[in-house]
């Protein structure tokens, strides 16, 4: 069983405008741990840095500082060359993440062969069929191409592909936001089932607070690159402390509150003195990561 430890992650991008260069800090000192059998939801509006975190975990982007380490059951850090055997990603858009020129079998066979999970035509085909069965798809889809499948089926194929290398840690970046409503719950329930059966560690990235609450054990809320609130899913949603989490929770459509759109605008999100703080529900207090880091330096 693999655990993924993310510590003090920082990502800066250089912006060029004419001759001027500025640095944009997209992710500031983000840290969390993905444990086998548990789902962590990473929640935030667009531009909050959540996808940048996912891209760094998938090693598509190099962190400016901080560490991302996959730790095996024996407590030893997994070598870089085996990292992708353990950590795999499911992307938002199943229309873009599958290659339109290749059959479904090819999409599953490639990772099986590359990661040494199967050898020979027969075995590869058997394993691919098993993977399809695990994601509730008939093996008959094997010879189809992505455009012949519905959005929900394609996302199931993407999940099967992530499982193909035998991954223990799955990073799902908005896995259902492009899907039809009726297939959304199906895909989320599938992820939950696979997680239970395989004891997977899952990072579920979304801006939908309702599914974040129902499909994860704990929630991490990000705003402007910082973690502003973290804790058990129900605590964060039912008892939000940070003003940003409250704004986010209030923005979700709610038929019970019909007519509130017509009432006065609550105005732009009030900037508060707590913007740089994190509320930690487990610790039950506000945390200032910058100050804590300072204190650690002085203590050392």
């Amino acid at each position, binding site marked *: 069983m693999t655990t993924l430890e993310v510590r003090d992650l920082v990502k800066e991008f250089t912006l060029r405008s004419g001759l001027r260069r500025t640095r944009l800090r997209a992710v500031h000192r983000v840290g969390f741990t993905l444990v086998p059998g548990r789902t962590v939801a990473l929640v935030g509006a667009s531009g909050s840095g959540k996808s940048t975190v996912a891209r760094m975990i998938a090693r598509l982007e190099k962190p400016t500082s901080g560490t991302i380490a996959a730790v095996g059951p024996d407590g030893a850090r997994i070598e870089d060359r085996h990292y992708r055997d353990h950590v795999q990603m499911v992307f938002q858009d199943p229309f873009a993440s599958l290659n339109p020129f290749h059959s479904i079998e090819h999409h599953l066979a490639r990772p099986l062969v590359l990661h040494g999970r199967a050898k020979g035509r027969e075995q590869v085909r058997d394993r691919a069929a098993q993977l399809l069965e695990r994601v509730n798809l008939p093996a008959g889809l094997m010879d189809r191409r992505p455009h012949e499948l519905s959005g929900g089926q394609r996302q199931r194929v993407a999940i099967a592909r992530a499982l193909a290398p035998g991954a223990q840690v799955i990073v799902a970046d908005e896995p259902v936001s492009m899907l039809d*409503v009726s297939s959304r719950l199906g895909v989320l329930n599938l992820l939950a089932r696979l997680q239970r059966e395989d004891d997977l560690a899952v990072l579920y990235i979304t801006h939908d607070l309702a599914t974040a609450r129902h499909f994860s054990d704990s929630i991490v809320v990000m705003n402007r690159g910082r973690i502003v609130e973290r804790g058990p899913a129900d605590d964060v949603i039912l008892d939000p402390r940070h003003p940003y989490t409250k704004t986010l929770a209030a923005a979700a*459509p709610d038929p019970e509150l019909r007519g509130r759109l017509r009432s006065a605008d609550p105005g732009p999100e009030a900037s508060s003195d707590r913007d740089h703080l994190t509320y930690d529900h487990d610790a039950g207090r506000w945390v200032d990561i910058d100050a804590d880091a300072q204190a650690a330096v002085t203590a050392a």
Partner: protein
Amino acid sequence: MSHNLSPQAAGAAADVTRDAVLTVRDLNVVYQGATPVHAVKDVSLTLHRGEILGLAGESGCGKSTLAYAVNRLHDWPAEVTSGSVTFHDRDGEDLDLLALPPGRLRRFRWSKLSMVFQGAMNALNPVTTVRAQLEDVLTTHRPGMSKQERGARCAEVLELVGVEPRRMASYPHELSGGMRQRVMIAMALLLDPQVMIMDEPTTALDVLVQRGILREILRLRDELGFAVVFITHDLPLLLELSDRIAVMLRGEIVEYDTAETLYRQPRHPYTRRLLDSFPSLTGERGAFLRDGAASRTQVPTDGGAR
């Protein structure tokens, strides 16, 4: 902004007795492929002035085809096989949209009925500025306008949707998704239309931006008095926003009622299923959630049995 509707007025907006602006009667649209697909079946709808009509359904249920057919934007192999679409102009004239000759149709589109397309953020031309794209509408439909008047009108609509007019010089890629969406809405407002059809205008946006745009639409509706057809699969959003809702399934309208009734007493099983597809934020966890056993026995809804 003192134009906000009181709850009573909001209730009146759903009043069926007020005058209609768009009537669709028994509309049928068929895609004449090798095997013809009946995409819209006997659809009848009435849109009243100042009303927000929600059109809910999943991809492939025919809601976009319906919107395109109303505007006669559909293209072969799609064909309107029967039915009528009538536009009741503000000055009392009734226009049979399906019989309009090409010249009049061109003048009608956008000036009386405009549309915000699905994926609006990618509908802008990437190689010209926002200004050029907005002014293009005015040079086509209002050839008599001077350059200054055009610039002023473009600035005015951008301000209406909350985009700074100086952003007119920008190219689409220099704007955020939410801003591009607003520019598209501004473009749809340019000619002061009486009906606006919005096809999934906020789906790709996060909840905060979405909320801002919805407020904008309601405020503009109250100020300018146009009617909106709002197409989306997000039923909770429609329940909060619209006066009446039509639920579409396989080309047919299976339920058509006020938002309130539809929420309290959904009659069609499909409406109930759609409502159940959205887990509530603060409510109890439904039995169907995080229950792998249930999802396995459930009939695959996305055609998994093909």
